């Protein structure tokens, strides 16, 4: 097996509406930045992997076909990945597999969403009216978590304040609310009990791309690469008897597989920074427990004690996370890209000091698809 290195990272500036560019133009902004970072051109790419959330979001079926020109994919393998909201993470994983298996030397992986061209809530409802949206689907599980863990109501507000303040330090983040306070979150309108407006993600337009290469490519990269230490994907059905949607088994299995590959026995002390897919505030403590970083009922205490702050012992979402930026298809890849930026020491104002090992996580569907990765500053 080959080692895989992330040598190029590119993101668009995420916004509510990018009506100045086409979908292709939006994607190329991220792609061109990733190529520039890797100091290569689109002609140097051997294969392209592209991911996005449901086609209904923009109303273009199999958009990878018409995007082939913009991706410079003529005559090259072009593969579409689709695993709902986790797709950006899965796309990274599939791209990395192209390298790890030794099939290709340089792969472009890109994920995107242009939510302003459609209506995601309608798309999620499969064309039926009266859809409850993602927040409505997840709210009962967040309530169940609060009930089971005994977490105080303010934990969700704390996560919202933290992520929104982190976003102010990230030039690519969509929502930047520098004057956010616990009071403001608490007083914002209730959308889906227990989730208030300021505890929810926005709808964004944007794209994220990475250039992946093998060990030789990583060693001659113009800038320090991020080394892919471990990858894992798992999925489960949205409903089945005995399912625990608060802590899905697929998420547990995915994390354990990841930690085993990376030789991690105590994730809380062995991981320096985590980018977790947190579209609603309560998912931060839920995934800390859902991936066995914290024990049962301990996730919210990590939030409460400030451990997940950018200066804490286990920083979560220094980028501002999905709470601040959610171009759905891109969001999973942004987690991997941000984790890579951290171990490359290139996260700028939201850099976590001394980050050497980073966890990237994406989830999708009814909390049923998972893609996880460990990125390191040095190959092991």
């Amino acid at each position: 097996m080959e080692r895989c290195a992330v040598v190029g990272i590119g993101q668009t500036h995420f916004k509510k509406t990018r009506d100045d560019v086409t979908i292709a133009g939006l994607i190329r902004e991220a792609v061109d930045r990733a190529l520039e970072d890797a100091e290569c051109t689109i002609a140097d790419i051997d294969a392209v992997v592209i991911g996005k959330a449901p086609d209904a979001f923009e109303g273009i079926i199999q958009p990878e076909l018409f995007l082939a020109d913009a991706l410079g994919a003529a005559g090259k393998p072009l593969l579409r990945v689709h695993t709902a909201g986790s797709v950006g993470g899965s796309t990274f994983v599939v791209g990395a597999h192209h390298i790890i298996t030794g099939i290709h030397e340089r792969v472009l992986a890109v994920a995107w969403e242009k939510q302003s061209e459609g209506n995601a809530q309608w798309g999620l409802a499969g064309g039926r009216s009266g859809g409850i949206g993602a927040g409505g689907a997840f709210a009962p599980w967040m309530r169940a978590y609060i009930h089971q863990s005994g977490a105080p109501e303010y934990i969700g507000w704390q996560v919202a304040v933290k992520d929104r303040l982190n976003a102010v330090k990230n030039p690519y983040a969509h929502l930047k609310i520098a004057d956010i306070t616990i009071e403001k979150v608490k007083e914002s309108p209730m959308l889906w009990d227990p989730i208030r407006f300021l505890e929810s993600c926005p709808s964004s337009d944007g794209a994220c791309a990475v250039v992946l290469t093998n060990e030789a490519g990583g060693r001659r990269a113009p800038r320090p690469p991020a080394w892919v230490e471990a990858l894992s994907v798992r999925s489960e059905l949205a409903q089945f008897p005995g399912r625990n949607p608060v802590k899905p088994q697929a998420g547990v299995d995915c994390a354990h597989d990841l930690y085993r590959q990376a030789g991690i026995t105590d994730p809380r002390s062995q991981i320096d920074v985590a980018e977790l897919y947190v579209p609603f505030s309560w998912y931060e403590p839920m995934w800390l427990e859902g991936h066995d970083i914290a024990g049962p009922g301990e996730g919210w205490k990590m939030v409460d004690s400030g451990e997940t702050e950018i200066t804490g012992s286990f920083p979560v979402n220094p980028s501002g996370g999905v709470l601040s930026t959610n171009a759905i298809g891109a969001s999973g890849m942004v987690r991997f890209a941000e984790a890579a930026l951290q171990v490359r020491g290139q996260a700028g104002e939201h850099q976590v000091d001394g980050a050497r090992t980073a966890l990237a996580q994406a989830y999708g569907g009814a909390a049923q698809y998972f893609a996880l990765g460990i990125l390191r500053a040095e190959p092991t």
Partner: protein
Amino acid sequence: MCSDSGVTELRTSETKLEFPYTRTVGPIVGAFLTGLRDGKLLGTRNRDGRVLFPAVEYDPETGEALTETVEVGPEGTVDGWTWVAHPTPKHPLDRPFAFALIRPDGADTAMVHAVDAGDEATMSTGMRVAPRFRQEAKGIVTDLEAWEPVR
């Protein structure tokens, strides 16, 4: 249970599900559509000097971003064609016509469009055609209604 007492016709209720999307057309496709509204045909020139028509943002062969628009035509040459003797309601014209590959003067590629030739005998590869634009142009692709033989 059914009975025939008094019920003489099926009763139905129609519902229509619609969801409109907004497509951002960007600087190149946008210029092409605006050109159609103004009765102009725009292509894009690539690094090799070839003019691709209709205008595209990215070179399909190399992925190069194309930024130089070029007015082509308005007349063009038919590179190939097929006759549609029995148009359906979904076809662009309500009378027999040809689907043709049309390469406007100054362009190096052809687009598929309809030739309102009236009679199959009028059609030939290499024939000259001119665009016919709709009276009320809106800056959308159907502003270009059809092509006509140049006599």
